[in-house]
């Protein structure tokens, strides 16, 4: 659903630009059109017309389910050394328990992709940056591993790589001495796909996570945000997070 809504923005523009050129041609260009229209053209830069966001419904998030975490680890080749304090972690499950009532809740916590990210404010080299479409990333080519961003992040979303790695995946380069965090699966998003955690959650039929363009009023996420009340974690910090929660 969300996927289609996101695609539509690009598809519309693409169709508009190329309709005349394609008009006289038949089967082969039609196939080409279909494939390319799945995502923003590869040679086109991201713009601030789009703001990627995620809506997590904690009522649907199953207690004890860690599919989002597992799929993220698989997608990015995150492997641990059995040392939970320092192993890389892009998304984690947090269980909340109200001591008075005993009510428990479970939710995934990941980089909140803030509009005003504190990690970007404190970065001395410009390695921590926000892409035009709202995705907060670390440019590991210029990260010096100072870990200021880890201190600044209110969500403990970032990890530092302490040890040399091997056999990284081509779409997820990771290395010793740099900080990393959730990228909203930027390599997938750039292809018009949804992040791995959302895909896993939907595949398990939990449907607790919705990903899409908050700026597009026709996208599923924008419609759900409009319809239901949602919260930002630590909204008092005025970071305008891209990840919103329902039911907390």
């Amino acid at each position, binding site marked *: 659903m969300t996927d289609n809504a996101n695609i539509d923005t690009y598809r519309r523009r693409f169709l508009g630009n190329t309709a005349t050129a394609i008009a006289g041609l038949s089967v082969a260009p039609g196939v080409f059109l279909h494939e390319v229209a799945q995502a923003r053209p590869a040679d086109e830069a991201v713009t601030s017309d789009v703001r990627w966001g995620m809506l997590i419904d904690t009522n649907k998030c199953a207690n004890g389910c860690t599919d989002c975490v*597992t799929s993220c680890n698989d997608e990015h080749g995150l492997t641990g050394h059995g040392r939970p304090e320092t192993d890389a972690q892009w998304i984690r499950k947090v269980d909340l328990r109200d001591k008075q009532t005993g009510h428990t809740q479970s939710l995934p916590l990941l980089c909140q992709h803030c509009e005003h990210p504190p990690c970007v404010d404190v970065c001395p080299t410009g390695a921590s940056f926000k892409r035009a479409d709202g995705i907060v990333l670390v440019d590991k080519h210029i990260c010096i591993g100072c870990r200021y961003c880890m201190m600044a992040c209110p969500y403990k979303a970032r990890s530092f790589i302490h040890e040399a790695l091997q056999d990284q995946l081509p*779409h997820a380069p990771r290395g010793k001495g740099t900080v990393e965090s959730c990228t909203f699966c930027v390599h997938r998003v750039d292809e018009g796909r949804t992040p791995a955690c959302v895909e896993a959650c939907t595949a398990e039929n939990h449907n607790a996570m919705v990903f899409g363009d908050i700026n597009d009023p026709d996208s599923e996420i924008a419609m759900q945000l409009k319809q239901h009340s949602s919260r930002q974690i630590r909204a008092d910090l005025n970071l305008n997070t891209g990840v919103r929660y329902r039911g907390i």
Partner: protein
Amino acid sequence: MQNLMQTSLRILLALSVVAGLPAAAWAGDDSLLPVVPQAQDRYSKTQGCVEPTTEMRKNHMEYILHQRDETMHRGIRTRQYSLEQCINCHVSDAPDAPRVSSDEHFCNSCHSYAAVSIDCFQCHADRPVKTPNPHALSGHAKSANQAAVLPAEPHQALATEVISND
């Protein structure tokens, strides 16, 4: 002065003719040059690499660096100058193919000869890797599908944390 130079040139020439055999052997001895592995494919019928080979030998780093910033910061994912495509084409996807630590790896074959150390592969994959979801945009689906499969290692990081709300 000029005469002196001409004389010494003549002497040198004569010497090299006398010692002709070893000199010729040295000039034509390819064993001292790096053995650069063949690429898996050609870019086009007329061109081996994405730019003329002489240009790539001299300036490949400029292309990769430019593409790096374009992809990282602007989300431009054209494949022509991407490091991933370099690897997909220039490195074998056989499981026992040489890794970047070896002089037989495409990149290192020349870099070790030129004594230029690179840190690209501290983070980037040094061989084509088959991913569970091969890139839809990849122009090299063939090599992606044939690539080595990495052993899956269980991730033992703390998946859950408990926060109690008083």
